[in-house]
C-alpha cells in the first residue's frame, strides 16, 4: 500500500437482512489521513456499512478494501489493524477504567504502555478516575475511555459508529476536538453521526438515506449545491405559519427548524430579499403579523432535507 492508495474503498456494496435492504450500491473511498463523516438518520444503513468495513458481516454485493486488504478474504489481517467503536459500545460497567483499558490492550496483544503515544492525550483526561468503575462514569468520560480502548493497539484506521449518541453537547465538542487532534496526527478516521454540527468538522461527508449514498461533499461547501432562495421565518404562531407556508403555490419545501421554519422557494431565479418581501406581505394578509423573515445561506441540513426529498422520487 502506498500513500496514494485510499484507506477505504467501497465499490457497489450491498447488504440485505431478509427483505430489508440495508445498503444498496454504496461506492465511496476514504483518503489516508482523512476525517470522513457518514451522515444520515437512524436506519439509514450507517451501522451496516461499519459492520462490512470491520469485517464482522459479509457484503451481499460489491466489494470493499480496507487498508488495501479485501474485507472478505483478508478479514483477519484487517481486524488487527483497525480500531472500532460499535454504536452501542459501552465497555464493561463492572470493571474499572484502568481494567477496561488493560483488558482491551491484552486482547489485542499489546499493553497500555505500548499504546501510550496515541492514547496519552485522551487518557490523561480520564486518568484521575482510573480506579472508578466504568459504569459510574459520565457519558462523555465513557466515550473517551472507549476511544482509548479502540486506540490502544495503535490502529491505522479508526471506525466510529455514532460515538457521541447520548452524550451532552459539551462532551460532544470535546470528543470531536480529540478526533481532530488524532487526524492531525495522521490517523484516518471514519465516523458516523446524526448531528449536523459534527458533520461540519469532517473533511468530507457522505449523506446516507435508505441505504444509498445521496451525495459526498465537503460539508463547508455543500451549501452551494442548494440552488434556490432559502428563508428562515420566525413567529409566535409557528403552527399557523407552517400551514400557511405549505399552502403557498410557490413553496418548494417547508420544514420546521429549531425555533424557526425554513422555506425554500420554487422559483430558483428570484433572489432572497424579493421573496422575503413577498412572503411578509402574503402572511400579513392572512393575519400572521409578527413574522420575521430573513434570507439565509443553506446549511448541510438544508441540503440533506433537499436530497432526502428527491431520493424516494428517484428510486420509485
Amino acid at each position, binding site marked *: 500500500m502506498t500513500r496514494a492508495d485510499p484507506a477505504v474503498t467501497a465499490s457497489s456494496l450491498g447488504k440485505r437482512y431478509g427483505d430489508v435492504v440495508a445498503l444498496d450500491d454504496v461506492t465511496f473511498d476514504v483518503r489516508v489521513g482523512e476525517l470522513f463523516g457518514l451522515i444520515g438518520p437512524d436506519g439509514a444503513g450507517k451501522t451496516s456499512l461499519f459492520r462490512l468495513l470491520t469485517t*464482522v458481516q459479509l457484503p451481499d454485493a460489491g466489494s470493499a478494501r480496507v487498508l488495501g486488504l479485501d474485507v472478505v478474504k483478508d478479514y*483477519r489481517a484487517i481486524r*488487527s489493524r483497525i480500531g472500532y467503536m460499535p454504536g452501542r459500545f459501552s465497555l*464493561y460497567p*463492572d470493571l474499572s477504567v484502568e481494567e477496561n483499558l*488493560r483488558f482491551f490492550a*491484552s486482547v489485542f*496483544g499489546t499493553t497500555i504502555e505500548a499504546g501510550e503515544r496515541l492514547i496519552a492525550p485522551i487518557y490523561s483526561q480520564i486518568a484521575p478516575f482510573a480506579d472508578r468503575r466504568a459504569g459510574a462514569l459520565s457519558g462523555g468520560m465513557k466515550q473517551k475511555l472507549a476511544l482509548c480502548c479502540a486506540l490502544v493497539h495503535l490502529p*491505522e484506521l479508526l471506525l466510529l459508529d455514532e460515538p457521541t449518541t447520548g452524550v451532552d453537547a459539551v462532551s460532544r465538542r470535546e470528543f470531536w476536538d480529540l478526533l481532530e487532534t488524532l487526524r492531525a496526527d*495522521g490517523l484516518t478516521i471514519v465516523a458516523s453521526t446524526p448531528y449536523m454540527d459534527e458533520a461540519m468538522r469532517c473533511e468530507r461527508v457522505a449523506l446516507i438515506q435508505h441505504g444509498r449514498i445521496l451525495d459526498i461533499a465537503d460539508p463547508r461547501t455543500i451549501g452551494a449545491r442548494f440552488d434556490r432562495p432559502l428563508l428562515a421565518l420566525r413567529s409566535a404562531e409557528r403552527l399557523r405559519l407552517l400551514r400557511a407556508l405549505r399552502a403557498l403555490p410557490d413553496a418548494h419545501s417547508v420544514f420546521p427548524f429549531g425555533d424557526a421554519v425554513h422555506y425554500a422557494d420554487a422559483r430558483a431565479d428570484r433572489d432572497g430579499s424579493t421573496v422575503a418581501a413577498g412572503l411578509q406581505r402574503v402572511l400579513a394578509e392572512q393575519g400572521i403579523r409578527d413574522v420575521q423573515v430573513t434570507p439565509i445561506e443553506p446549511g448541510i441540513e438544508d441540503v440533506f432535507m433537499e436530497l432526502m426529498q428527491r431520493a424516494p422520487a428517484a428510486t420509485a
Partner: protein
Amino acid sequence: MSSRTGGRVRAPRLPSALGAFVRKELHHIVRDRQTLAILLLMPLVQVLLFGYALRTDVRDLRVAMVDPTPDVLTVRLRNRLESTPRFRVVSTATSTALLEDQFQRRVADVALVLPTSFADGLARGDRTPVLLVTDASDPNSGTTMQSYVRAALADFESDLSAPGRGPVRIQVASRMRYNPTLESANLFVPGLIALVLTLVSALMTAISLSREKEQGTLEVLLVSPLRPWQIIVGKVLPYLALGFAITCLVLLAARVVFAVPLRGSLTLLLAESVLYTIVSLSLGVLVAARTTSQRAAMLGALVGTMMPTALLSGMIFPISSMPGWLRPITNVVPARWFIVIARGIMLKGAGLGILWHETLVLAGMALLLLVAATRSFHARLD
C-alpha cells in the same frame, strides 16, 4: 504510518490474551455480589429444602383397614402395623363403604382391604389377594406409601411360618437394598447437583455471553485478534471453576446435614460433574448464540435447560412413571444420564466399570455440543 504497517498480522499471544479474558470474567463474577451470593447460597438452601421440607418419604401413614372377618391373624397384622412408628391405623371396618369418604376427607392415606376369611386362605397356603388402595394425588408419596405397606406386608408374611406366597414383593426388594429407609435426601442430592450445575453453567454463561452482545463489547472482541474458540474458552473456564466449587459445597452440605452417603469414588464423581458442566456450558453458549438479548437468553436457558433438567431427568418424577411416549425423549436430557451416574456412585458405590455406558453417552454429548457451540460462534456476526 509505515512504522505501524510493519507488524502485519499479530498472532494473538494466547496465554496473555486468554489470561486477561479469564481474569476479566472472574471480575464480572466476583463483583456481582448479589448474583454470586445467590449462586452460592441457593444450593445450600435447596439441600435443606429438599432434605427437610420436600420429603417424599412419609412419616405418619394413616391406614384404613377393611377386614370383613376379623380373627387373631388379622388383629396380629393390625398390631404389627401399629407397632411401627410410620403407620397409624385410623379405622377398622368390615366393609369398604366408608373408604371413599375417608379418602375425600383425607383422614386416610392408604386402605388395606383384606378378603373374607383372610386367615383361612393363608392357612391353606393359597395365593391370598389383598387390595391396597393408595391416595395417589401426589404420585410420588403415593408410590412411597405403597412401598411401605408392601414392605410391611412382606415382613408380616415372612414372619408367618405358613408357606403362602405373598401378594406383592418384587419391586420392594430392589429399592430396599440401596435406600432401605427410602430417605428422599439420598435421591435428591444427585439431582440437585445436576440442577445447580445447569443453573451455574448454562444459565449464567448464556446471560453473560448475551450481555456482551447487548453491550456491543462482543463486536469489539470479534474484531480483535482473539479467535472465536478463545473467546468461548475464556468465557467458560471461570464458570467451570464456579460449578466445581458449588458441587463440592452441595456434597459437603448433604453429608454434614443429612449424612447422605458417598459409597463410590469422590474423584470419579467430581470428574463426571466436570463432564456434565461442559455439556451445560456448551448448551449455554448455544442458547446465547441464538438469542440477541439477555432476557431472551435467560428465557431460552430456563426453558431449554433448566426445565428439562428439573422435569425430565428423573430427579423429581421417576422416568418409569412417565407415559411411554415421553420416556424416549428423556434420553436427550443430559441430566438424566448424569443423575444415573451420580446416584450410582453415591448410593451404590458403582465405578466406571458399571457406569461406562452412561459416561460414554455424556461424553458424546459433551463433544457434540462443544463442537456445535464453537461452530455457532462465528468469526462474524451473521
